[in-house]
């Protein structure tokens, strides 16, 4: 993974000093709340319901064992001994003290970490596929370009005061796992007709209050121009994005208002003026950054291991885990492992300091000392040898990290919700837990198969409910908490936004509603169909009929 040199290190050290001074001035009364707010937000610090929340960047979800140990240490010393891995592939602390944050950032800087631009109206942390670099369907490893984009976007002076937050995602594989269509800018690597690597540029996607999938504004961009082209997109947005209404300030609203064609024309017109500027990426710089992600450290092995096969054959629990939590790898003899942060009864994405240390140790011993955070809020060990899988499973299981539910109904994506977040209309964690409790039968879960259930506590959609096969959205009705259900949403290359099935439900009704949706699926599915396929074939009518039948009776 990328390692800082003295230039990177000096920048984050200077950031710590700058933020320490900003906080000092705020506490001394020299900065008002309104003046301090954008400064702390651009460093990931929110003021929340019970305490501030600090969002720590894990650039494109990639970190090493030493960093994760430091995070564990910080949660013990400055928080309550646990942290929350979020859908932005980063880590959130729920209980830091505002006046401790400069010290926390100084601690993070010792392991090349920070909270820069994890919040606020600026270019946010850039996200990608958690299987970048190892996925068999990968066309090009997106991480070198993302690292170049990360550096370019960090403290970018022109884009330090955008109308609203701005999120980029980069995908380098055939099947999109980076949600490029649901970001302000999505860069999608592909092979063109001449078999050359090119970038397809999506803009104007986003979930939130107005869920919209992005539009392609440039079908073919040479990677050398990624920075200058993004600069033009951001410039048009910075100048013309709406600032009169925060709900209409995302780039998607501008793209809709102008029309994608006109928006693209304005971008191209700006780009003409500077497209070959010094920000054009050189092959030498690309190669230098790519050297940090270069393959070649894997051993040469057969793609088969007798001990693994034997364990799978004799141990059904291990076999179930291997089926759901182990993923294919482009190098023979290796697999990626998802450590599930979704056991029943724990807030999805939460990990204790002890679990962080266990994961750090597992990574160090079995996976080149590196870990990844997925936007599904789990932790990935990307490079585990087949022969080590059983040991990894045994250790993970002891520490509650081996729930065999990846991609299943209980692998719920869930925002912190009303228990923590001051934006939330409703709680989301108790809903996730109630659903997990209702579907605690593993055999039934595996029979239901692939199913993504996403929960957001408000329409800001941090829990990505619009693209869940089943989406649950917390809404406020006359001061009480209700839940709206959507079905038919999907992430990926064939993404779609879910459809609301009807009037919303009280919290205690939600698990029952999910049951009825599943019953409808099981009654109607063909042999090969996943939940989402059946919804797409039948539409929402039969689901709706079954769910609301009870009320009628």
């Amino acid at each position, binding site marked *: 993974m990328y*390692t800082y040199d003295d*230039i990177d*290190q000096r920048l984050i050290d200077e950031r710590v000093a700058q933020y320490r001074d900003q906080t000092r001035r705020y506490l001394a009364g020299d900065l008002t709340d309104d*003046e301090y707010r954008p400064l702390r937000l651009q460093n990931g610090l929110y003021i929340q319901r019970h305490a501030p929340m600090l969002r720590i960047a894990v650039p494109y979800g990639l970190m090493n064992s030493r960093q994760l140990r430091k995070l564990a240490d910080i949660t013990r010393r400055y928080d309550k001994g646990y942290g929350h891995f979020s859908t932005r592939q980063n880590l959130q602390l729920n209980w830091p003290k505002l006046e401790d944050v400069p010290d926390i950032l100084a601690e993070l800087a010792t392991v090349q970490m920070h909270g820069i631009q994890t919040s606020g109206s600026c270019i946010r942390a850039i996200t990608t596929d958690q299987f970048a670099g190892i996925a068999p369907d990968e066309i090009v490893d997106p991480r070198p370009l993302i690292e170049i984009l990360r550096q370019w976007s960090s*403290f970018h002076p022109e884009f330090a005061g955008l109308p609203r937050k701005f999120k980029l995602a980069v995908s380098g594989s055939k099947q999109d796992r980076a949600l490029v269509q649901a970001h302000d800018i999505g860069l999608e690597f592909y092979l063109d007709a001449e078999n050359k690597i090119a970038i397809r540029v999506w803009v104007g996607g986003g979930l939130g209050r107005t869920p919209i999938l992005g539009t392609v504004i440039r079908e073919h961009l040479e990677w050398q121009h990624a920075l200058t082209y993004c600069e033009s997109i951001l*410039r048009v947005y910075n*100048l*013309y994005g709406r*600032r009169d209404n925060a709900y209409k300030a995302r780039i998607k609203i501008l793209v809709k208002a102008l029309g994608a064609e006109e928006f693209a024309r304005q971008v191209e017109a700006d780009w003409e003026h500077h497209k070959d500027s010094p920000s054009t990426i050189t092959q030498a710089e690309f190669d230098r950054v790519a050297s940090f992600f270069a393959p070649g450290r894997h051993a040469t092995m057969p793609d088969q291991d007798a001990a693994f096969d034997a364990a799978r054959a004799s141990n059904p629990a291990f076999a179930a885990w291997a089926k759901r939590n182990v993923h294919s790898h482009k190098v023979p003899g290796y697999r990626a492992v998802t450590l599930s942060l979704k056991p029943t009864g724990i807030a999805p994405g939460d990990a204790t300091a002890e679990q962080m240390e266990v994961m750090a140790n597992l990574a160090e011993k079995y996976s080149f000392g590196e870990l990844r955070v997925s936007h599904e809020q789990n932790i990935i060990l990307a490079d585990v040898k087949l022969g080590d899988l059983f040991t990894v499973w045994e250790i993970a299981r002891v520490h509650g990290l081996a729930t065999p539910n990846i991609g299943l109904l209980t692998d719920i994506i869930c925002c912190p919700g009303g228990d923590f977040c001051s934006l939330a209309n409703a709680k989301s964690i108790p809903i996730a837990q109630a659903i997990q409790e209702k579907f605690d039968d593993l055999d039934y879960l595996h029979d239901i198969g692939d199913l993504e259930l996403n929960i957001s506590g408000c329409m800001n959609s941090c829990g990505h409910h619009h693209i869940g096969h089943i989406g649950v959205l917390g809404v406020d009705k006359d001061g009480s908490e209700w839940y709206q259900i959507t079905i038919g949403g999907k992430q990926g290359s064939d993404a779609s936004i879910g459809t609301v099935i009807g009037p919303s439900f009280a919290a205690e009704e939600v698990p029952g509603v999910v049951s009825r949706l599943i019953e409808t699926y099981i009654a109607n599915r063909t042999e090969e169909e996943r939940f989402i396929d059946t919804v797409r074939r039948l539409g929402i009518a039969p689901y709706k009929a079954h769910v609301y039948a009870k009320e009628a009776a």
Partner: protein
Amino acid sequence: MSNLIKNNAIVADEWTLITLPAPAEETVRKQAGKVVIFKITGESAATPEQISSTEIPEAAKIIVPLTVWQARKDELAARAARREVGIWLESFELLEDLINSVSDINSVPLIAIHFPRAVDGRGFSQATLLRTRYGYRNELRAIGDVLRDQLYFMNRCGFDAFSIRADRSAEDALASLRDFSDPYQGAVDNPLPVWRRHTRVAHHAAASGRVFTRSEDEVD
């Protein structure tokens, strides 16, 4: 004491900023129940009445609103020829209107861009475009809600003068121009990105321990 920073020093301000009189009726606009703070780019900045009733003093050097400049150019022509008329624009005004209002942008001795609130970043792009696409070389001044924590960014976007908000110390603000010593990306102040300014190490060097990482091996 002056609150103007120019070329990294606090200097006396030779210019008088001319503002529009308040409009006859101030309508409070609301969106989603909230008072609208920012205008949409391209909205008009002044009514004809405001423009015509703007008082232009006989002071030697003046900075006039773009709308006043556009409407009363003839009246200001002699002073402009003596390079005593600067122009300021709102964050929501169109840069193209300024460009189209002069035959040569470098005949304008001073352009100021107004930041209604520190978080309105449109001025960053306006400044960048003035310095790059339009080749403007004279004084570019940030006015309005100009606070020290924006200065580093403003400076990188091509501003060379900063009129610090009256209730804040320009002395303190000077320090923030040096918040970061070696930025990643190219910008107006230095178009070269970091990789064109320095030779940076690739991974093999990092692995052999030549890279400075603070807590592991404090060798540098």
